[in-house]
């Protein structure tokens, strides 16, 4: 029995091989420089004062004592943001967006979640800064909070924003509301589809707020020079996004903001928002010194992330033969303190695994007194899948259908139109379902008391977006690869592999470096499973540019027309004169003497998507005395497209699965009745440890993406989607009772028993 299987369609020389990552030695020796590791001359330590209340009006802030505190160099509040001096008239239609962005960074009139930044201090040391923030006096008028999506949608719920109106299919509501937006997707005729069904099942589901849980807390260091140049060093998934956000909030030209991405200790979507960077910049501007801000773990929980808690309703109609005839879905997602939950993505993913003739999805984006939600791996998709896949599991039970067979009968494939519009090109869900059905895990019956098996599928778009790569040929025949994609889990390797493959040279002859925003073209975040796909594409394009230039140079050296020269597998040759032949290395050596060096450049924005699907199988056992769930066996099958580096593809799948296991079984924000988080430490917010888990088996099904030169699809998002419903269904089978709220805690299981 093999634990990690790769089902390949095509083989390449470098792509698809398990190379050592270029940053590996630095990371196993402790030498790699993460954001918190930076040291600068004259560096000050900062500390943020945060709201103790979930919802309150700020009546006054007095920073006098703090400013006079020992070692204190600067104190800032929302009044120091340029926004404070701007008026609604000046800003026009941009007012509310900018107000929300600014108030999120530093609260002005109201605090909207416990942990909301109110003020910040820069001092000689961390301890002095911590002491100084305690000297800041804030007077609050405490207001009742709205903590869950259902509560906040009630007509008499406490309002977070008195100027937020529901945007409903392009119209604004008459009265202010916590419902920021209502959106809808529809196809076919749902009512008709329901009449065609032999069985209609309608259920409600809930999921709790969970955190991305990266081990490295947020950090930001800023130095605002006297000439107006603002330099920022931070751990972020998106240095260019930080640059835009900082420039936007500080009303400073983008060209005067340089963001240097340090190594990053995990993000999963949660390290895109600029939380600390604008504050560090303000403190630096005021003190004239570089300032470093670090979040504590409690601050990470209380003021960054989380993924939204949800309430969902799913109605599915199916025929006796197991064909879906109609789907009617409502998703209500918590946005946190400001609008912007991923409910739209959740809605687009909810039915993406299936060919649904008649479907309707309503989505609500609702503000609540929790931290503003952030992206978390396949944002919106896991929650929606929990609801939809759980209903499908109930239907399979009711109709006596095999869950893999049911999914095969309805599976999305080439030509199928998603409810929100796009039509699939070649995708690999059917292949994944078949691989799951043929897998030793699925073919081995699960025996024993209190045990259950669950199966579920999941989807993510894997969109491209902008990336930029420069490739410079060195005289020794190696290549420097300059990229803007932060390496969060091995992407230096996967990008370098694609460049090497295209140039026909060896993997270790390409040396990748991630650089700051001044030194490379615009590159979107490392996230959404786009990096290996889109930045890989940029590397391919830059390599093609190098090849073009090398062909020109060879033609020049041989004094022959360009059309006579060809480049293949790292060798330049004359099409008709076999004497004229040079390897990449031989030509590289001659470049400087024959017209100068060669640099290939590319800026891409790939239009296609790398749509990817996963199918997971889980076996688990429930202890009827304690309610504890033990995962016995787990297999994840995924259409990764071409797996550029199979080890890191497996790693993404395994890591996503385990985050999903945590989400399904343990992880949850607990709030008291005043809306204060009660479990803001790793002791009480319980993420899976090595002891909680078995090995996670993987099957990579390589159905090449027709929209990428090497067939890459992207990997990281999908594996967090199926675990929620797979585990929910497995527990339901083990205990004979349906669990419709996540996490399924031991307490919930004991109650159900």
């Amino acid at each position, binding site marked *: 029995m093999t634990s990690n299987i790769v089902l390949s369609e095509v083989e390449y020389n470098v792509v698809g091989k*398990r190379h*050592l*990552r270029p*940053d*590996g*030695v630095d*990371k*196993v*020796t*402790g*030498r*790699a*420089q*993460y954001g*918190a*590791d930076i*040291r600068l001359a004259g560096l000050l330590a900062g500390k943020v004062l945060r709201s103790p209340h979930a919802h309150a009006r700020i009546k006054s802030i007095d920073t006098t004592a703090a400013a006079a505190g020992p070692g204190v160099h600067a104190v800032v509040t929302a009044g120091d943001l340029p926004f404070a001096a701007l008026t609604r008239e000046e800003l026009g239609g941009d007012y509310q967006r900018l107000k929300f962005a600014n108030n999120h960074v530093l609260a002005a009139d109201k605090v909207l979640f416990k942990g909301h930044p109110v003020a910040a201090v820069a001092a000689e040391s*961390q*301890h002095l800064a911590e002491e100084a923030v305690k000297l800041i006096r804030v007077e609050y008028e405490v207001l009742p909070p709205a903590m869950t999506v259902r509560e906040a949608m009630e007509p008499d719920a406490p309002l977070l924003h008195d100027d937020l109106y529901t945007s409903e299919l392009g119209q604004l509501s008459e009265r202010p509301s916590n419902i920021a937006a209502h959106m809808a997707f529809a196809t076919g005729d749902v009512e008709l589809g329901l009449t065609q069904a032999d069985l209609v099942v309608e259920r409600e589901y809930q999921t709790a707020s969970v955190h*991305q*849980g*990266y*081990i*490295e*807390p947020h950090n930001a260091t800023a130095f605002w020079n006297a000439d107006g140049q603002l330099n920022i060093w931070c751990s972020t998934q998106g240095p260019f996004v930080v640059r835009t956000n900082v420039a936007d909030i500080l009303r400073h030209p983008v060209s005067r903001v340089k963001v240097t991405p340090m*190594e*990053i*200790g*995990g*993000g*999963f979507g949660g390290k895109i928002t600029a939380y600390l960077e604008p504050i560090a910049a303000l403190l630096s501007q005021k003190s004239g010194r570089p300032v470093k801000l*670090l979040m*504590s*773990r409690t601050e990470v929980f209380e003021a960054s992330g989380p993924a939204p808690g949800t309430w969902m309703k799913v109605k599915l109609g199916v025929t006796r033969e197991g064909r879906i005839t109609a789907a009617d879905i409502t998703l209500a997602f918590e946005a946190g303190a400001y609008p912007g939950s991923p409910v739209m993505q959740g809605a687009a993913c909810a039915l993406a695994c299936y060919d649904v003739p008649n479907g309707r999805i309503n989505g609500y984006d609702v503000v609540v007194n929790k931290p503003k939600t952030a992206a978390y791996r396949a944002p919106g998709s896991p929650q929606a899948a929990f609801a939809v896949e759980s209903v499908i599991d109930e239907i399979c039970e009711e109709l006596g259908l095999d869950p893999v067979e049911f999914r095969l009968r309805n599976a999305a494939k080439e030509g199928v139109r998603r409810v929100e519009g796009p039509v699939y090109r070649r995708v690999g869900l059917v292949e994944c379902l078949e691989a799951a059905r043929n897998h030793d895990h699925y073919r081995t019956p699960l025996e024993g008391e209190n045990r259950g098996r669950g199966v579920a599928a999941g989807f993510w778009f894997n969109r491209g977006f902008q990336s930029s790569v420069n490739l410079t040929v060195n005289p020794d025949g190696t290549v420097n690869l300059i990229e803007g994609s932060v390496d*969060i*889990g*091995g992407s230096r390797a996967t990008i370098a592999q694609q460049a090497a493959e295209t140039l026909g040279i060896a993997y270790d002859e390409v040396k990748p470096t991630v650089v700051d925003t001044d030194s490379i073209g615009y590159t979107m975040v490392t996230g959404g499973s786009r990096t290996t796909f889109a930045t890989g594409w940029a590397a391919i394009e830059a390599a093609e540019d190098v090849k073009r230039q090398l062909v020109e140079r060879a033609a020049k050296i041989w004094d022959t027309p360009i059309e006579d020269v060809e480049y293949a597998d790292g060798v330049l040759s004359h099409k008709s004169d076999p004497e004229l032949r040079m390897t990449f290395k031989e030509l590289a050596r001659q470049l400087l003497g024959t017209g100068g060096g060669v640099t290939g450049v590319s800026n891409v924005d790939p239009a296609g998507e790398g749509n990817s699907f996963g199918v997971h199988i889980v076996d688990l056992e429930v202890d009827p005395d304690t309610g504890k769930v033990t995962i016995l066996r787990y297999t994840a099958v995924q259409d990764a497209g071409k797996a550029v*580096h199979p*080890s*890191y593809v*497996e*790693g*993404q799948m*395994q*890591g*996503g*699965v*385990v*985050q999903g296991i945590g989400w399904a079984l343990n992880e949850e924000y607990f709030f008291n009745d005043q809306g204060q988080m009660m479990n803001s*430490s*790793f*002791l009480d917010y319980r*993420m*899976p*440890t*090595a*002891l909680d*888990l078995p*090995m*996670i088996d993987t099957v990579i099904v390589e159905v090449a993406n027709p929209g990428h030169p090497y067939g890459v699809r992207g990997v990281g998002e999908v594996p967090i989607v199926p675990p929620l419903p797979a585990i929910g269904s497995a527990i339901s089978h083990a205990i004979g009772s349906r669990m419709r709220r996540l996490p399924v805690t031991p307490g919930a299981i004991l109650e159900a028993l």
Partner: protein
Amino acid sequence: MPGVVHVQTTINGNPTDFLCEPRQSLLEVLRDVLGMTGTKEGCNDGNCGACTVVFDGRIVTSCLVLGVEAQGKEITTIEGVASPEGLHPVQQAFLENAALQCGICTPGFIVATKALLEQEPDADEGRIRHWLAGNLCRCTGYDKIVRAVLDAETKLNA
């Protein structure tokens, strides 16, 4: 500075003197006073293991040890694991088995693993999972970490 204490200790075999405030943790001293940033902070309250060091032969979370407690002790950090000849087999195994993604947890895992294998060169999967339960990794799902530890055993026992 008032109340600063002079501490004499040994770090990675080197006699080391430093000044620290009594309230500073060993983690702070390593990172902020001595500039040894290989030891990472993930929680500062003993629950993630990113700051793991060897303290007189036992592994500890350095965020829960005071700097002044280092007086007269022998400390090994991630910076002391590799030798001038090259990586330690545990480091090599982590690298070869793709046992790190973001790498922030890696120093803690490597220090903890090295300590385990020095005491129990044949630890099985269950024992490894038990030993490493104090080290959180959010990226890998632990599969490849456990495989790397088993591979390191093979390398060390060869």
